[in-house]
């Protein structure tokens, strides 16, 4: 059963939500769009393709301070900062919502990351489906789709002067209770079919016969700018830094990336690894390793295309998948099924 | 004439500031060694020697200096400038002084020299080129030396060296505009500081 909400009613609804919730929505700045807590409905950018950065940072901030105290016995306790209000994340695209499904796999595993759990549980996702696929988009290739409602609480699909509404979860139901949507006889557009799943590279670890490819075609070109990791909705690596001062403890947690040269030093296992190995690691981890390790059934790439657009030297994950495919064929492995 | 020189405060030394501005030379560099005078081909005629002219500018003795013959007699051979140990373009200073005298419409101590320059430019203004017969004629008519250099004329004419008619540049409008705009611009940039004190 579907329902329909006009654009005006949507704004009114969002206005009411603003009273009791923190409303996180796309807003324009410096020619780009970013998710940030908005104060007025007018600040929301309804007409956007996708944000420059994924909404990941709402749940897993770029840096966060976990503060605590040193108890008498010298033990340290850390307490996450509780959210003041419940939150609504409006405008998340299906690909980014899939990104949250990825980070969930990491942060929700018992015992769970208290800070993430707090934010995740208290935030309702109101997604907006994409009507068009941009040149850099490839969600359909990664098992998602521009109008997949799978990973959100509510999905809105633009239709004329309003939106078709799909309420997917209980949380969504609760939130949309006062939304003022009408019953609609319009059918929800069918989910855009996914293409055959991306073939994953050869082997997840160890020396590989394709090293020349990584060294010369990819590693040579990569400048370690780290942008791919910072714009990625799924990258979840972080670094921590502790400060103790007069009986108080502060733990700073900040995003980090496997492409930073310092990462090798800290994480150890990749210390002094040649650049090609490090590059290969990034893609191996995203594609075969993540589903392998966490049994997710989907890769740690959602096809949002941000890294494709942002990479200053055009390291294009789709091209890499194709190249590896060709390489497999050339070494005699079976061809991938045609689309 | 014997009198005491009143030394002006540096800030009031309009003469020096004008000369420094228009010639681009730093007058205080001059340490009065006299090499300029020593090498000057016409210095033996100057009432203040080139070195003394430089000194007069340093001291700002404008009225006294403006009255002299000295700077009118500079032939711009650049010997002084080339040999000055302090790298002052002394010839350019002389140029500046002439320029100042003309801007302030002073009666030149060497009226023949000034006259020559005036006629020369008048001809260039009129024809775009110099016409020697015209120059000589004008000069003799106005200088009070009607027979100056006339002894040379027969031989010169005989050898076809002095055409009676001037050569001209065709685009005379352009030439006149150059004269006009140069004068306008120069008056503007010279500013009030060169105005002759009443």
């Amino acid at each position, binding site marked *: 059963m579907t329902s329909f909400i006009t654009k005006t009613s949507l704004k009114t609804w969002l206005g009411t939500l603003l009273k009791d919730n923190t409303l996180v929505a796309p807003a324009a700045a410096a020619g780009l769009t970013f998710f940030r807590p908005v104060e007025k409905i007018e600040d929301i950018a309804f007409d956007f393709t996708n944000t420059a950065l994924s909404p990941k940072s709402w749940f897993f901030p770029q840096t966060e301070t976990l503060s605590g105290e040193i108890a008498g016995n010298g033990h340290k306790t850390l307490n996450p900062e509780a959210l003041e209000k419940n939150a609504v994340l409006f405008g998340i695209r299906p690909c980014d919502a899939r990104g949250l499904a990825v980070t969930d796999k990491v942060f929700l595993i018992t015992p769970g990351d208290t800070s993430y759990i707090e934010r995740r549980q208290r935030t309702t996702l109101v997604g907006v489906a994409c009507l068009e696929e941009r040149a850099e988009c490839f969600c359909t290739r990664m098992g998602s789709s521009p109008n997949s409602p799978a990973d959100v609480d509510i999905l809105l699909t633009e239709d004329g002067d309003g939106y078709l509404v799909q309420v997917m979860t209980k949380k969504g139901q609760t939130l949309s209770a006062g939304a003022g949507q009408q019953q609609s006889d319009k059918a929800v557009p069918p989910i855009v079919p996914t293409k055959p799943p991306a073939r994953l590279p050869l082997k997840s670890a160890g020396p590989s016969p394709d090293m020349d490819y990584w060294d010369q075609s990819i590693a040579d070109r990569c400048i370690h700018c780290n942008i791919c990791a910072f714009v990625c909705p799924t990258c979840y690596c972080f670094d921590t830094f502790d400060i103790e001062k007069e009986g108080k403890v502060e733990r700073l947690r900040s995003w980090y990336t496997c492409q930073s040269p310092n990462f090798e030093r800290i994480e150890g296992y990749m210390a002094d690894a040649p650049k090609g190995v490090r590059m290969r690691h990034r893609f191996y981890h995203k594609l075969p390793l993540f589903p392998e390790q966490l049994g997710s059934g989907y890769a740690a790439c959602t096809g949002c295309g941000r890294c494709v657009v942002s990479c200053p030297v055009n390291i294009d994950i789709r091209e890499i998948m194709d190249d590896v495919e060709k390489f497999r064929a050339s070494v005699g492995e079976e061809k991938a099924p045609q689309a | 004439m014997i009198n005491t020189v009143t030394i002006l405060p540096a800030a009031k030394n309009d003469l020096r500031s004008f000369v420094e501005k228009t010639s681009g030379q730093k007058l205080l560099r001059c340490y009065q060694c006299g090499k300029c005078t020593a090498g000057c081909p016409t210095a033996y005629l100057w009432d203040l020697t080139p070195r003394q002219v430089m000194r007069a500018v340093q001291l700002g003795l404008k009225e006294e200096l403006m009255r002299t013959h000295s700077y009118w007699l500079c032939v711009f*051979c650049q010997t002084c400038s*080339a040999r000055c140990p302090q790298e002052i373009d002394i010839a350019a200073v002389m*140029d500046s002084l002439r*320029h100042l005298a003309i801007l302030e419409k002073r009666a030149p101590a060497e009226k023949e020299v000034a006259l020559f320059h005036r006629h020369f430019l008048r001809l260039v203004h009129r024809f775009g080129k110099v016409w020697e017969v015209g120059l000589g004629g004008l000069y003799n008519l106005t200088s009070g030396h009607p027979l*100056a250099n006339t002894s040379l004329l027969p031989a*010169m004419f005989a050898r076809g060296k002095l*055409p009676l008619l001037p050569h001209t*540049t065709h685009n005379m409008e352009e030439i006149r505009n*150059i004269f006009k*705009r140069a004068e306008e611009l120069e008056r503007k940039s010279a500013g009030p500081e060169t105005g002759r004190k009443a």
Partner: protein
Amino acid sequence: MAVSYAYYPGCTLKTSAREFDESTLKVCKAAGIELTELADWNCCGASSAHSVSPLLGLSLPARDLQTAEALGKPVAVACAMCFHRLKHASHALGDAAKLKQVNQVLGKEFRNTVKVEHLLTILGSNGSSYQVTKKLEGLKAASYYGCVLVRPKEVMELDDEDNPQLMDRIVASLGAETVEWDFKTECCGASLPLSKPEVVVNLSHKILRQARQRGAECVVVACPMCHSNLDIRQKAMKAAYPGFQEMPVYYFTQLMGLAMGFSAAEMHIDKHLTDGLSLLKSKGFI
């Protein structure tokens, strides 16, 4: 390969120094240097404009340079005074502010990219190839450069300020003997002939006197002003300095022409006020 220049003769080369103009044109042609007279040129302003108005002193030559720039050819100058003014202008206009001012005066855009060269450089060192057919052997000549041709050195970029060699090398290449003397670049009185003829006589006399003392039979020049002062004032010198001996004064292009096979008449040696023919005859060159 023929070298091509925009030729700037200057006012006097068309009048009192015609022999310089004509010898230059003939010699250059024979030496494979193409001179095209600069269209509708004007006086460079020497020696008056800069004395009276610095801006005018820059603008007049700038107009000529602009014409050459538009033509895309370097400028060849014969007259030393004109050369001085043109070089000076192109040096001074290296200053962007001045260039802007001058462009305002000109009313068109001059970019100051044109190269100015004196004929001495063009004939003497820029790989020109003139054929000496008649060596002027036994002729002792003093090369006289005059003052402004070389000064200031960093602007003229021609030769040493006190002991230049460019003309001496040309004269020597013709088979003549050059004397070493101390007056190569002393001033002859330059622009004073009309207003102060007695000064010119005094200075020019000193020059000729030393040339004679150092063993020269003639003086070679590259400037119409120098030539006129040294040549036409010799009668006056005789009157003022008893014992003064006359001495012919040639343009270097005239001697070049003779050595290259032109006749004395073609080189207009008869146009000088001080007899230049007898010496050449006595040496058997004509």
